[in-house]
């Protein structure tokens, strides 16, 4: 009886955490609980982006319950399947297949020199280098396909784990959140959320005043500046791309880019992106006042022209064609954004539009929030890289805001004062929060000023601009 009780007690989370005697781990878990508490406080009490911060924070809690093991992030990383250690040995679930593949290659003298196993060092992961000529060698490819073809494929000069191998591992050995996380890994959730955003967004202010697109473009400056900054302080190009996109102030875009380029940073980047989006009313106003004069802030803009139904219907179709022809990698975001908008404006798919805006978007938001939050486990989340991401994310937001403001100031000067530069700050996506901030600042300068609809133009232009910026990173690095 006593043994049974002791056995049961040993399975509890309390025993797994405090019984380990690992004080660093205990401190990490407790710190995570403080962070989770702070995020829940921001979501519930301060109402900062509650629809996303709450599921993200709770997903973090679920991922940091000792012994619960609701998510197995290892399944989604290459080194779970194959890793070359410091002594040159091969470990991972595919180690047997890879070792047999290497043995076969070594046994064939005509293939000598085509494959080289490089052991891991303190500064770099171990890899198995394969000469370019190997992939044109029939004998080599036959051996490769025999031993590794089921789980790996060759693309853009590198060998990758097939998604089918990952899905198989998740289905055979995974849990609920592993299954939910597949929606992130496969890029399903960001696109579906973009469809909902498209259905909810009125692009009329942009169609009526297409000059707004320039401000949306100017506000992407922070994306590329943060990318450069991240590279300068030692992040890899893939990590830097994922960090830079925080400046786009667009959660789904940041998640799509990060899951592709740097999935190990997903938790930190998603939390930074959504937290800063929620803090836009605090982050932006000081820079808006710094970069504009009182006189500029009082500028009243003339009424926008009415937009015809034909224009509204043609807009999503043409934007999809133009953007995706230039940047095919942006199709997953822009295509679904515009599909949702077409549902809304066409006037013949009201049911689809309502579903995309409400039920579907809400369901996907829950799945996305929980699974993204669950990627932030104590061991990986609490390190200097996360601190760097939080700092660079803030810098990206600030530079994006300033980029939009400066572009708007130039346009104000060119149009001889017809554009209020405050609306430039709305060029960061964050719809409609950034436009509301521009409206509030304009009203503070002149209570009779009404900038909201004017600011919605650059605001929705920012959504398109950040999707294009994401496409640029994906086409360079994915």
């Amino acid at each position, binding site marked *: 009886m006593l043994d049974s009780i002791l056995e049961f007690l040993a399975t509890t989370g309390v025993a797994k955490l405090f019984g380990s005697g690992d004080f660093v781990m205990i401190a990490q878990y407790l710190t995570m609980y403080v962070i989770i508490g702070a995020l829940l406080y921001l979501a519930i009490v301060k109402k900062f982006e509650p629809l996303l911060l709450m599921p993200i924070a709770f997903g973090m809690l679920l991922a940091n319950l000792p012994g619960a093991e609701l998510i197995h992030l290892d399944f989604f990383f290459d080194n779970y399947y194959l890793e070359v250690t410091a002594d040159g040995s091969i470990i991972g679930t595919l180690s047997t297949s890879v070792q047999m593949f290497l043995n076969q290659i070594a046994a064939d003298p005509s293939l000598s020199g085509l494959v080289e196993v490089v052991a891991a060092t303190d500064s770099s992961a171990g890899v198995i280098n394969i000469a370019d000529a190997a992939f044109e060698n029939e004998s080599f490819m036959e051996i490769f396909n025999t031993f590794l073809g089921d789980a790996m494929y060759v693309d853009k000069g590198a060998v990758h784990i097939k998604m089918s191998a990952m899905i198989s591992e998740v289905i055979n050995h995974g849990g609920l959140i592993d299954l939910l996380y597949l929606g992130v890994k496969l890029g399903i959730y960001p696109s579906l959320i973009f469809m909902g955003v498209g259905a909810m967004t009125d692009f009329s202010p942009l169609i009526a005043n297409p000059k707004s*697109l*320039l401000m949306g473009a100017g506000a992407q400056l922070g994306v590329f500046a943060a*990318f450069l900054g991240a590279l300068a302080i030692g992040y*890899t190009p*893939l990590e830097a791309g994922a960090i830079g996109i925080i400046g786009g102030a667009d959660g789904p875009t940041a998640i799509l880019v990060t899951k592709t380029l740097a999935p190990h940073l997903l938790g930190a980047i998603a939390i930074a992106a959504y937290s800063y989006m929620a803090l836009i009313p605090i982050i932006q106003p000081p820079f808006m006042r710094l970069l504009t004069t009182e006189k500029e802030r009082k500028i009243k803009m003339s009424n926008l022209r009415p937009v*015809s139904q034909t224009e509204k219907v043609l807009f999503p179709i043409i934007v999809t064609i133009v953007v995706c022809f230039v940047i095919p990698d942006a199709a997953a975001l822009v295509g679904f954004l515009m599909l949702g908008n077409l549902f809304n404006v066409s006037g013949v798919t009201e049911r689809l539009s309502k579903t995309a805006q409400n039920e579907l978007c809400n369901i996907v938001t829950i799945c996305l929030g929980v699974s993204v939050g669950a990627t932030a486990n104590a061991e990986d989340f609490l390190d200097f890289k996360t601190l760097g991401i939080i700092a660079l994310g803030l810098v990206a937001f600030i530079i994006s805001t300033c980029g939009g403001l400066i572009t708007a100031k130039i346009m104000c000067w060119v149009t001889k004062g017809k554009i209020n530069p405050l609306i430039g700050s709305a060029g960061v996506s964050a719809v409609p929060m950034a436009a509301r901030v521009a409206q509030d600042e304009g009203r503070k300068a002149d209570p009779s000023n009404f900038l909201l609809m004017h600011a919605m133009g650059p605001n929705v232009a920012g959504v398109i601009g950040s999707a294009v910026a994401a496409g640029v990173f994906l086409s360079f690095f994915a």
Partner: protein
Amino acid sequence: MNALLAVEFPTEYSEVMLLGFQVFLIGIATVFSVLILIWGILSLFKLFFGTKAPKENKPVISEVSSAVTVSSAQDEIVAAIAAAIAFAEEEAPGMKFRVVSFKKR
């Protein structure tokens, strides 16, 4: 040389930063180019499908028949009052107010 489960990037700091500047310039140029292209197309929209902006200080509803005008104007007033109340409640939760009078103009 291909690498099993790795993507090859420059390792020298100067090469990494060179790559960074290239991506920075190409990225910004691409974003501006695509959005300017869309701007151009939307400007053509205005020529082919656009409607003119209503002139300021001239109520649009004056051109509509009187019966519709009354209904539309009333709807607008109701909508404006409802929006003002909703905004006031959002700005200062718990704030109490009462309507003192309506004046016909």
